[in-house]
C-alpha cells in the first residue's frame, strides 16, 4: 500500500520567508511524528500527534515552528521567518500501534538562502 508521503521533496527559500511542509501518513495510522535531520544535530524529534490527544510539542526548537494535523490525517509543519539554521531534512513518520515501528516518508530537504 501507499507509504508516508511528504511534499515538497525540496524547498529553497530566502531567509525570513515562511514555509509549509506537508505530510500524508499511512491510512489508519493514529500517530504522526515530525523529525529534523541535520549534519550537526543528527535526528531530532520535533512534535507528535496521537489520535485526538493534544500534540506533544516539546521538541519544537522555537516559537517560529508550529504544526497541525487536520482530521486525524494530513499534517502541516510551518516554519515562520525562516533562518539559515533551519536548513535540514524534515522527516515525517507514522505508526499504528505503540509496539510497531514508525514508517518514514522520504523527507523534505529545506534550504534557506
Amino acid at each position, binding site marked *: 500500500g501507499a507509504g508516508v508521503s511528504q511534499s515538497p521533496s525540496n524547498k529553497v527559500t530566502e531567509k525570513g520567508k515562511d514555509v509549509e511542509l506537508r505530510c500524508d501518513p499511512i491510512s489508519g495510522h493514529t*500517530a504522526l*511524528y515530525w523529525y529534523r535531520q541535520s549534519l550537526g544535530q*543528527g*535526528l531530532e*524529534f520535533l512534535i*507528535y500527534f*496521537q*489520535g485526538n*490527544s493534544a500534540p*506533544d510539542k516539546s521538541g519544537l526548537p522555537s516559537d517560529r515552528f508550529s504544526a497541525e494535523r487536520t482530521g486525524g490525517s494530513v499534517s502541516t509543519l510551518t516554519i515562520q521567518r525562516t533562518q539559515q539554521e533551519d536548513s535540514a531534512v524534515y*522527516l515525517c*513518520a507514522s*505508526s499504528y*500501534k*505503540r*509496539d*510497531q*515501528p*514508525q*514508517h*518514514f*516518508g*522520504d*523527507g523534505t530537504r529545506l534550504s534557506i538562502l
Partner: protein
Amino acid sequence: ELKVEQNPLFLSMQEGKNYTIYCNYSTTSDRLYWYRQDPGKSLESLFVLLSNGAVKQEGRLMASLDTKARLSTLHITAAVHDLSATYFCAVDGEGLQGAQKLVFGQGTRLTINP
C-alpha cells in the same frame, strides 16, 4: 533526559568479516528500534525489540536488547557490500497516549569494502 549513544560512529570493514554496533541509553526503557538509512534516502525499519533479552535476526543482521544494562547490539555476520548504510538505534522515551517518543543515536556509518 534520555540520551542514546552509538559506537562506533564510523565503521569500515571488509566483506566476509563480523562486527558489532553498540547502542547505550541512559534511562529505563524496554522498547528499542533499529533503522537503516541509505544515502539520500529515508529511514527503513529493521528491528523492533520490546523486552529484556529480545533477539531478532534477519539475514546477516541480528539485534539484541539488554534492558538491565541499557544496551542493544546490532551484529553483522559475514558482511556483504549491500549492507553499507547508516544504522540508527532509537529508544522509546514513552510519549503520551501510547505514542512513541523516539530518541535516536547519532548513527553508525558502515562501509563494507569488497
